[in-house]
């Protein structure tokens, strides 16, 4: 997050030009280079970095995949994708130079020879392009390929570098499907790369507003004394989307909303909201505090899952007035599928700061609108004077997407002779206050990985602790006897009624988005 990352000796000409760690020359090898992620996110992100002058000139991008093609064909495909998906329009002259740094390496993931030729090719690129032996391996392939790729990288000596150079690996989610598989995946990665070489990407953390949570909390003294059980009544985190499974049914049937969203994105957001102030902004100081939150999450007994977690699945309904089919009618979904497309949870963090503060989370597909936000609901003012009839609380809302910003609901006197009090909103919009568009999350995260800054990447223990928490819920759902029910909700609604009941029992209600 700042210059405390493992930066080499400072360049005196950089003084005053950049407050962030400077990305270093390197070769970026993308495994699964012909896939969607590479075309939609990675190459457009790298292009934008190049166009903004943030990419070091000595960078080479090597796509590693099975399909037969040459450098020129690969570049042409990526150009087409970048023109379609890039945040900024592609300029021919920049693309032309950028494309010269892109190469294609054809090989099966399990073919040892392919890695040996890759090693030779990387050495040649180092000499020709000045990438200085630094290697960044990006795993955009399916997780079941990771072991084979890692084994062969190690066999080809690509996990090690000469003195003064580095090798790092970026692993895309999902990091396993449960604790056991996450541990196994971590074991496999660790057999080739040390933890400080491993960058587990969660693109939610690359979002400007997610990073702003730390600034909001720790750069504004007014919130610090209020940020605890004495003043906060409860917290809500919502990640809603109008989309259905959109061709991802194969993956989604195995994952479901809990694994797909809660284990990673939502728990990461919760950590940023709930963590203690870190000692400094170094990667490990921040991650040390985050992991304490996951460890402090109250673990449910299997019998408690039904009362604290609601799972739902969308049935047919309408989004924006347009009829849509139910989940079980989606292509490649089993007609009797029990996969949850909605989940609502009532959590507690058993630490000094958050004792007895309920944390409500909900995530769902085919909800009425797409929005991700965190709301901090403060306790009511004493019910005396004009507060006697107040129904509303002070609420601080952190909008993650879209329309990123922060709003604070306070009470104000309605003009007139009487003391009528109504809630009003103080609202900060990123789009209004700052003209500059935020970079895409992948741009920030790729730059951080090239700079050796792991702050916005998940550490092994964070991932495993999160799975340990999720596993209890998954096991309860999988139990044959007494498994909590699956509730259906019409597409276009805010989820099953049972999710409302979850809060109503505590005298709360979901915030209207």
């Amino acid at each position: 997050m700042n210059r405390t990352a493992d930066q080499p000796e400072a360049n005196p000409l950089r003084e005053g030009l950049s407050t962030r760690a400077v990305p270093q020359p390197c070769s970026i090898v993308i495994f699964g280079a012909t896939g969607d992620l590479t075309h939609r996110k990675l190459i457009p992100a790298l292009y934008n970095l190049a166009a903004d002058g943030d990419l070091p000139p000595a960078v080479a991008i090597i796509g590693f995949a099975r399909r037969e093609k040459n450098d020129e064909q690969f570049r042409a495909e990526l150009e087409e994708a970048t023109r379609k998906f890039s945040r900024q329009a592609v300029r021919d002259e920049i693309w032309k130079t950028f494309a010269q740094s892109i190469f294609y390496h054809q090989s099966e993931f399990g073919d040892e020879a392919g890695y040996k030729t890759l090693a030779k090719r990387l050495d040649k690129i180092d000499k020709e392009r000045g990438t200085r032996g630094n290697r960044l391996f990006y795993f955009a392939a399916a997780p079941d390929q990771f072991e084979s790729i890692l084994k062969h990288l190690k066999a080809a000596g690509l996990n090690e570098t000469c003195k003064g150079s580095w090798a790092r690996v970026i692993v895309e989610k999902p990091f396993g499907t449960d604790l056991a598989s996450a541990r196994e995946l971590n074991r496999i990665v660790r057999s080739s790369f040390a933890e400080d070489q491993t960058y587990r990407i969660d693109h939610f953390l690359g979002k400007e507003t997610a990073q702003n949570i730390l600034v909001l909390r720790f750069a504004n003294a007014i919130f610090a004394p209020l940020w605890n059980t004495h003043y906060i009544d409860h917290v809500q985190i919502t990640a809603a989307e109008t989309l259905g499974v959109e061709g991802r049914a194969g993956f989604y049937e195995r994952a479901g909303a809990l694994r797909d969203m809660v284990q990673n994105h939502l728990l990461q957001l919760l950590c940023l909201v709930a963590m203690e102030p870190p000692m400094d902004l170094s990667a490990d100081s921040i991650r040390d505090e985050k992991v304490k939150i996951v460890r402090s999450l109250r673990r449910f007994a299997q019998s408690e899952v039904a009362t604290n977690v609601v799972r739902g699945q969308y049935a047919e309904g309408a989004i924006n007035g347009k009829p849509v089919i139910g989940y079980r009618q989606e292509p490649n979904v089993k007609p009797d599928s029990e996969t949850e497309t909605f989940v609502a949870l009532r959590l507690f963090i058993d630490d000094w700061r958050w004792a007895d503060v309920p944390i409500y989370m909900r995530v769902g597909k085919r909800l009425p609108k797409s929005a991700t936000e965190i709301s901090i609901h403060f306790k009511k003012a004493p019910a005396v004077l004009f507060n006697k009839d107040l129904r509303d609380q002070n609420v601080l809302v952190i909008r993650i997407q879209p329309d990123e910003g922060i709003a604070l609901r306070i009470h104000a006197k309605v003009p007139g002779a009487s003391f009528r009090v109504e809630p009003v909103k103080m609202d900060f919009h990123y789009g209004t206050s700052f003209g500059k568009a935020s970079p895409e999350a992948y741009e920030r995260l790729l730059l951080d990985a090239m700079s050796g800054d792991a702050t916005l990447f998940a550490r092994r223990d964070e991932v495993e602790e999160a799975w340990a928490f999720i596993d209890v819920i998954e096991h309860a759902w999988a139990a044959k006897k007494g498994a909590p029910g699956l509730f259906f909700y019409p597409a276009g609604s805010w989820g099953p009624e049972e999710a409302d009941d979850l809060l109503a029992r505590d005298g709360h209600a979901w915030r209207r988005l």
Partner: protein
Amino acid sequence: MAAITENYSLGLQVQLDKIDSELKKLWAESQGAMTRASLVNLAVYSEVPGSLEKNTQLIAKIAENHACRAIVIEADCKAKANRVEAWISAHCHVSRTGSQQICSDQISFLLEGPCTSLLPSIVFSHLDSEPMDPQLWAWVDRVIYDSQRWKDFPEQMRLVESARKEAKQRIVLCDLNWTRLDKTRSALAQFFDHPTSHHHFAKMKNARIDFAPGFRSTAVLFAGWLAAQLHWNAEKTTRNGALQFVDSSGHKIDIELRERNGEPIGQIALNSREVEFVVARAKCGDLLEVSRGKPGEKRTPQLMPAGSNDPVSLMSEELMRGGPHYVYLHALNCVRELL
């Protein structure tokens, strides 16, 4: 709604004592359709006749990226008769999310004659926060100027620096002539990001800076930056238009300044005893081509953003930044006597 403008008119003319009430009326009329935003009070002062309209144009563009309360003043201190006129207007644009009109407001003043001495009180009473303080400087956080236009650099700098000293709080000096160099400095700096390149610092032999007519001071500032960051001392004499510096080991480094038509800084070539580092404007004009190599060696040039020399871009760039600009002050001190 007459005062909401997109065509850079000065807006609605108002009486001096009615500015606040007219502004309130303006926002009341537009409530719901427009959101007023302001992150900074941006006061623009000029004694150039006709500058009000020109600076209004600039503010309209700057406000798209930097929501502000703009106070634009044109003053003619030499006029014999008093004249004070004021206008209010709003600069609106559609927000990035496309859902709202975001507006910054502007108050414009035309002051002529002895009444220009009222300038501080006029500005204070319209700052977009709680005033008041009798000293204008006490309300200034950043002074933005462009030293490229200065005819007498030492005298102008003395004025700016004495004003800065008079203020009790920190005032950051922001020179657009320095901002103009940002991208070029970044482009040159990136050659040395890796520690294995640092040995070249001790082997610097000479440099050449091509500058456009009128931009010699920009080139000298660039040389000052190199000198300050690499611990070179300026020799007071120049020979054939070249600046002479001495590094900490006593080696001489000549920096040749060449006037060439084109961009403010057209090309920079920095030579160590082994390698030449070049930053040059690409043919397309708004990109920099950077390359390094030994003489006669094949090079792989890369493109980087060059930035723009127009005042709106320079102002926007400057307003995006914070910090005290120590590097600028060091660079300036290295070449102060050469400017």
